[in-house]
């Protein structure tokens, strides 16, 4: 077993690492190097990073089991909150650059376009998770907290559907993300008593 404590610098370092995509985008926006359609680049990139952070968050539990390193748990909240950070920018770029806060249009979009419906659902489901991410909320909710935070599975599924339904013809990337999600879910049904061998064929 490893020592339950980790070096104090890991958390700030991880924090900065998680910020790199945002800094990179901000730098690209500032220097106008986000390509021919920079607003689209912003939307696409923050959407992709949201999915990546959701999957990273979901990776923590299987990794703890596999490596027998419960210390990793202390980084999960940060990963989850970064998923929420990127999804907020993602939604913001849509509301502003795509719809210019035309709420009527946005409402029509949510009703008419399945991928928007799915994306909006994912965001809405992530809001309570971000709000209850504090230690205080965790204590106050006790067992209910665990049940509530299972919403991440639903939110990630909705996020993946959002991706599938917006793609025109090349499904390779959504398939890759969905496969990783599937693998992470499979890793969860593995019996906790089983020997630590990869549970996926």
């Amino acid at each position, binding site marked *: 077993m490893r020592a339950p404590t980790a070096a104090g610098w890991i958390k700030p370092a991880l924090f900065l690492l998680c910020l790199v995509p945002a800094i990179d985008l901000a730098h690209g926006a500032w220097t106008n190097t986000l*390509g*021919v*359609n920079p*607003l*689209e680049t912003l939307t696409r990139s923050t959407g992709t990073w949201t999915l990546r952070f959701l999957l990273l968050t979901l990776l923590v539990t299987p990794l703890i089991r596999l490596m027998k390193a419960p210390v990793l748990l202390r980084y999960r909240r940060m990963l989850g909150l970064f998923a929420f950070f990127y999804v907020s920018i993602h939604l913001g770029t849509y509301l502003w*650059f795509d719809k*210019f806060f035309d709420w009527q*249009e946005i409402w*029509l*979009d949510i009703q*008419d*376009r*399945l*991928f928007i419906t799915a994306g909006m659902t994912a965001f809405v489901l992530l809001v309570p998770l971000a709000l209850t991410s504090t230690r205080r909320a965790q204590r106050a909710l006790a067992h209910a907290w665990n049940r509530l935070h299972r919403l991440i599975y639903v939110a990630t599924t909705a996020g993946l559907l959002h991706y599938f339904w*917006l793609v*025109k*013809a*090349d499904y*390779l990337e959504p398939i890759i993300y969905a496969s990783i999600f599937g693998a992470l879910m499979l890793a969860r049904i593995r019996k906790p008593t089983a020997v630590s061998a990869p549970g996926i064929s």
Partner: protein
Amino acid sequence: MLIRVSRRSDEKESAVTDPEIYRQRRIFMQQCAAGVAGLAGSLLVGGQARAGLTIGAVQSSPYSTDEEITSMHAATHYNNFYELGYKKEDPSRNAAALQTEPWTVEVEGYCENPGTYAVEDLVPVDQLEERIYRLRCVEAWSMVIPWLGVPLATALKKLRPTSQARYVAFQTILDPENLPGQRRDVLDWPYVEGLRMDEAMHPLTLLTVGMYGQVLPNQNGAPIRIVVPWKYGFKSIKSIVKIRFVEEQPPTAWNQATPHEYGFYSNVNPEVNHPRWSQRRERRIGEFRKRKTLMFNGYAEEVAHLYSGMDLHKYF
């Protein structure tokens, strides 16, 4: 031998033109007297005999818009040309994968002059016109591009379609060994498109070999493509190797892939909802605010009569 007549819009663009792409391939433009232009044309035809390397005079056209032209960099680095990759920046990166020499166009079906044609046979260099058109992509973005070509009608008339020819079908090159996008079944290759005869014969429909005063870059559909400015961009099929006069409405690539999203007609229409993109507005590349999308992409005066009496929600 290089004769280059400079133009207002050339200056900025030449700075961003990839020399690899345009090496040995240039169109020399001439906007003044036709006699001088003809001379330049004949000189250069003698100098460069290879197919596809056309040069010629350029006449301006009353069909051109005077809206601000999109930068050539944007028009050549933000492309939907799935044969060269599925992301917007892929076609410019993979442009060299498209082999444009030698190039011939097969003409088949209901016409009196079927056969194999060189690009110059269909688009004579001394008849090139510049047409500055709005281009509206189904993905709700748009550009303004100066194309070089001849009316498709001019070329088709030479082929003498018979009365049985009610539609024209087009086919893009099939070359999965070289074209990276054709190695996966993302679309049912080769890419095919089609127009009703009256659409093909409409004076706005351009058989195109150049843009921004130069030969078409590969990523924009070299060496020969069509441009149908009142329809969504995917109707303007690129890198054409086959033209076929047919009686029945021909299959079209995106319609086959997703029939409820992309119709045969695919006229730009802000009133017809698309499951992915609201078609009411569009982003002109380079602009922040979105613009209202115009019926038939602003060409309603010219083309609306082609569809009179048709339910455009049904025939989308």
